[in-house]
């Protein structure tokens, strides 16, 4: 089902969208060493459901399909979806990128990881045409960041590789295998410092988290949304990712905890939620079941498409 350099290549429109993503979104896009994470995407262009993945802070689209490892993108493609991976960008630019991806008669699901989810919510507020959202460890509020995050802010590294390894590990993972860590560092890193500045501005010295515009965007979205978070995620734990943590009960939004108490095979850190091999067996079936239940195939009648 995936397009890996042969067979079904990207459509012209998607190729343009990928190029647009690289130029407009301003984050350099995927590196050539990982051709599968190109603007062309994975899976059949004619799939009933398309998924747009947006990576977290300091990482680019290759995090969704690491060489020799795979990842969320090919996993979703194997489930029958068309999958695109976009570079994270600010909300309006991301909204433009999503509009370019949108095809008539095809559902579009926005999937954001961490900071990428926060930008995805800003894109939704800016009118991005998505039918459903999956928000992986996505903050809906800021403030009260724990001491490891404050140490990250204080150091303001150019990218994750510039951070002392013990602090990077504490912030990002509960134990990534070396076969995952090496390609992540080699292929998926992107500049980090300016994102950290934006994060700190949003937190604005608040002693505890308060809802941000992300929660307002989620409330205004009104469509189905799945939030997942892990209590061992040092960057964006459940107390900033669960709408209920801010007293918000949203009828169309579901939050799920990823932890052994709810049957997860292990504790997951921030990167582990998308890059750890066990995320494939723990999280991907959850995503697939949720999509099947909440994102029905589009009406085949010609007038039905929104795109």
């Amino acid at each position, binding site marked *: 089902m995936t397009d890996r350099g042969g067979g079904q290549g990207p459509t012209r429109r998607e190729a343009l969208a990928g190029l647009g993503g690289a130029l407009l979104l301003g984050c350099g896009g995927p590196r050539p060493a990982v051709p599968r994470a190109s603007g062309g995407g994975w899976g059949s262009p004619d799939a009933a459901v398309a998924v747009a993945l947006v990576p977290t802070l300091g990482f680019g689209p290759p995090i969704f399909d690491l060489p020799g490892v795979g990842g969320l993108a090919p996993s979703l493609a194997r489930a029958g979806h068309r999958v695109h991976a976009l570079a994270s960008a600010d909300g309006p630019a991301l909204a433009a990128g999503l509009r370019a991806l949108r095809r008539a008669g095809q559902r579009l699901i926005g999937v954001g990881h961490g900071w990428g989810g926060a930008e995805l919510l800003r894109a939704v507020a800016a009118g991005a045409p998505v039918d459903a959202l999956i928000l992986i460890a996505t903050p809906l509020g800021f403030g*009260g960041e*724990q*001491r*490891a*995050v404050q140490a990250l802010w204080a150091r303001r590294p150019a990218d994750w590789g510039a951070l002392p390894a013990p602090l990077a590990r*504490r*912030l990002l993972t509960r134990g990534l295998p070396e076969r995952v860590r090496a390609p992540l560092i080699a292929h998926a890193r992107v500049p980090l410092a300016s994102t950290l500045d934006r994060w700190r501005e949003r937190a604005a010295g608040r*002693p*505890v*988290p*308060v809802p941000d515009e992300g929660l307002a965007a989620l409330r205004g979205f009104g469509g189905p949304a799945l939030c997942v978070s892990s*209590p*061992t995620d*040092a960057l964006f*734990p*459940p*107390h900033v990712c*669960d709408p*209920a*943590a801010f*007293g918000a*009960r949203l009828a169309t939004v579901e*939050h*799920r*905890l990823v*932890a*052994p*108490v*709810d*049957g997860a095979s292990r*504790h997951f850190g921030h990167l582990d939620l998308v890059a750890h091999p066990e995320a494939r067996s723990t999280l991907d079936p959850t995503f697939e079941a949720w999509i099947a239940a909440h994102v029905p195939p589009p009406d085949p009648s010609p007038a039905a498409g929104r795109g």
Partner: protein
Amino acid sequence: MRVLLSLSIALSTLGCGRWLYPVTERATSVEVLPTGDGWHIALHRFPPAPGAAARRLPVIVCHGVTSNRRNWDLTERLSFPAHLAAQGFDVYVLELRGSGAAGRRPLFGGPPAHYTLDDYATVDVPVAVEAVRARTGAPAVHWVGHSMGGIVMYVYLQRVGGDAIRSVTAVGSPVHVLPQSRTLADAVDLLPLFEVFFDTLPVGLVSEAAAPVAWPSRLPEQHLVWNDQNMDPGAARALAAHGTHAISVGVMQQMAASRDGHLRSADGATDYTEGLAGVRTPIFFVAGNVDHLAPPATLLEGYRRLGAADKRVEIVGPANGYRADYGHVDLVMGRHAPDEVYPVLTEWIVRHD
């Protein structure tokens, strides 16, 4: 595992669960006091260690839901009261009605089995506070509660009030139930089934029976109780054997009803979660990062809502520099708690003494 579970149940039937995992008493005295409505409370004293710095106010330490004094005092090392006493504090470990030395309800002729958080907070706690003040001559006390032991103080401060409480340390004490975990949500949903058969939930019996298989956690439900990787196996089993008690379904109903985001009085007239805005007593909210019974979000909400200017919140976990992930019970009984949690709690109490 099934064999072990069956064996443990058999041993429990013979009363062997406690015999298998013996514990010793460290309190120098215990006093059982009537509450005036047919129940009793118990106060276990840990006097200041000889030679320790003199402190101004005594400390009352209170257990959590379905628990007793062992919640805070299990072994020589796992004893926050002993830790405080070594720092010079006069410490009283409180057992609320129906728990531990406070006595069980007699089968016939006893007080009503149905009691609530309001009864704890408006009857038991005032008796304890006044008794400690009378015995020490102190104008006020510090209060340290684990889980429900903090919740009863949220209620006391709103229903009784006054100046008798100098500071509160609320460890894993949610301001309402927040079932982020589906396992917890399912357990809360099951409560009405138990209510059909019991007016008192026989938690102690079940826990003692399961003591031999209490560690490691093999069932998702066990992760609700603690992060087993942060528990010493022997301590976990001893706590299961000695540290749990039956509890009124009234308390459980009241807590379960708070899953809508508001802990209310038993008659529904008072919203204790909202009412925190009117509380001026300093409170230190302490949350474990993997505590699923009292997730950090509910402690952070308490901090946000509290009206007092003097307040603090701390999430205990690796992201804040701690060595382990902390669940509910291991916040006070975890293998690293004496080294990295007790000093943090003590620092707050000393600062307010």
